[in-house]
């Protein structure tokens, strides 16, 4: 990065540290924080959408759809979320390849599952074997995002289902009395009022989501845990910057990052709750009205 970094073995300790912390691998480490933020930025809205769909399905009049929705909302209750992470990442990949295999290679006669491997025709490989490394990483990341969205969608569905049931029944009945259709009641009355009930659960979910991001490491994405593990392990003299086992310091850095992130989120979410409670027919809203008067 700097011109004086050409020969690290001749540097004094301050400059050595400066050069060490700006080496190419460290820049990759810093950019992997971006990966984590990207995951959060993409997963949060998608999971919310999944959750909304799940909660709507669970309230549906249609019995099979309702069963599906209830199953989805309750799937995360009894089973550890990490099992879903491990499961979906492989299952989604195989489902995709299997589907492509059926379309692209209808004359393929060999069995796909032999008990020891999962083998589809070369054309059905996702991404193709010839693809550049970057596409393999993008594909891995996309799978991780979808997996996160499915699991956290189930959490969100739980929260939103509870929030939808928490809207006072009288509000909906009034809307019906005005002659609104089911859809209109849902769109104009239920959804706008539901958010304030959903917010405590959703803020909790956001904090959980932040704390689940290190699991990206288990899904094979080169995230901050991967790089901390990689950079922290002791380096012999064959490396440009030899050092002992520094993993402790790297993981301490990650700990501080997560603590700061959750703390900032807590403060922002507390403000948002105040903002949304204003003028609502809830205890918090009433307390605010009295304080202002």
């Amino acid at each position, binding site marked *: 990065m700097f011109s004086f970094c050409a020969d690290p073995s001749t540097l004094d300790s301050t400059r050595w540290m400066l050069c060490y912390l700006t080496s190419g691998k460290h820049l990759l480490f810093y950019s992997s924080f971006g990966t984590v933020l990207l995951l959060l930025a993409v997963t949060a809205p998608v999971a919310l959408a999944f959750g909304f769909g799940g909660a709507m399905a669970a309230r549906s009049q249609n019995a099979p759809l309702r069963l599906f929705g209830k199953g989805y909302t309750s799937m*995360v*209750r*009894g*089973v*550890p*979320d*990490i*099992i879903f992470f*491990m*499961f979906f990442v*492989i*299952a989604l990949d*195989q489902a995709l390849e299997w589907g492509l295999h059926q379309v692209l290679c209808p004359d393929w006669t060999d069995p796909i*599952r032999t*008990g*020891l*491997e*999962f083998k589809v025709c070369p054309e059905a490989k996702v991404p193709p074997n010839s693809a550049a490394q970057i596409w393999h990483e993008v594909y891995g990341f996309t799978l991780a995002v979808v997996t996160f969205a499915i699991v956290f969608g189930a*959490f969100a569905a*739980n929260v939103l289902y509870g929030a939808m049931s928490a809207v006072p029944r009288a509000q909906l009945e009034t809307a019906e009395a005005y002659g609104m259709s089911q859809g209109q009641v849902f769109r104009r009355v239920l959804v706008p009022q539901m958010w304030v009930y959903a917010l405590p*659960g959703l803020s*909790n979910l956001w904090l*959980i989501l*932040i*704390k*689940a*991001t*290190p*699991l990206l*490491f*288990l899904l094979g994405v080169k995230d901050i*845990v991967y790089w*901390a*593990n990689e950079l922290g392990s002791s380096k012999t003299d064959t490396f440009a910057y030899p050092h002992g*086992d520094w*993993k*402790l310091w790297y*993981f*301490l850095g*990650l*700990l501080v990052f*997560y*603590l700061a992130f*959750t*703390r900032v989120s807590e403060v922002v979410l507390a403000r948002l709750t105040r903002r949304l409670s204003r003028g609502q027919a809830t205890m918090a809203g009433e307390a605010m009205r009295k304080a202002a008067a």
Partner: protein
Amino acid sequence: MTCWETIGAYAFRSLGYGERMLPKSDFTLCQQFTLIGSGLIWNLYFGVLALAFGFFLANALALAKTSRHLWIRKPAEWFIFVFRGSPLFIQFFLGYQLFVLLPKTGIELWGITLQTDWLTKAWAGALFVLFLNTAAYSAEIFYGALMAVPKGDLEAADAYGITGFARFRRILWPTMLRLGWPAYTNEAIFLFHATTLVFFSSFPAFKQQGDALYYAGYFADKTYNPFIPYPIVGFYFICLTLLLTFGFSLVNRRLNRHLPSNQRARIRLRPQLIR
């Protein structure tokens, strides 16, 4: 190999007894059920012990957090913040690195040599991290419950002349437990779920002795078929969750036995406590 022989060979494989080699090919459903069930012993071990030890530390921390003395309150607050604000996964990594850095020969303390190498093994190191983690989460629950003890109860205690430690033991503590118990049930369930992380963080599984998810991962890696082993772990954990809910609801009933039936706290399963 019949299924009974498989059970005989692998039922305690996770503890190091029975057949040494894990199955390499021709995986049967029976093998998967047996080995994954065998791994569940570790999940039970971590969960039960961390919960049992954590309960006491959590009570102490909750009390410390209500203390008027800054020097008692602040450390408790920080402890709870650090363990609740960071991912358990990172805590495992950090804990392992800390334990590795301890001197290999042990620590000399007043002429006694304390061995430290067992802390780098999962059975002790991971248990220690889980113990601190669940203590922090439970302490926050108990602290909230302590704050929610009705004022009338304390006034009644004052009127009867019950003060000091007797007031805590007979009035405050039982009420705190009663109020906090539904949330504590959830904490217990999610602690058991969190035990699956142990062998996927840095703690190594020696001689392939791992927990339920470790063996499920082994089968999924070997067969490239996630559709059998993972649902089996899921099934085991659903059973475990039902069993835990049942056990905790018995305690809940005992804590609430003096109340009229319509005022009793019900245990509701809320997935709010993943770490």
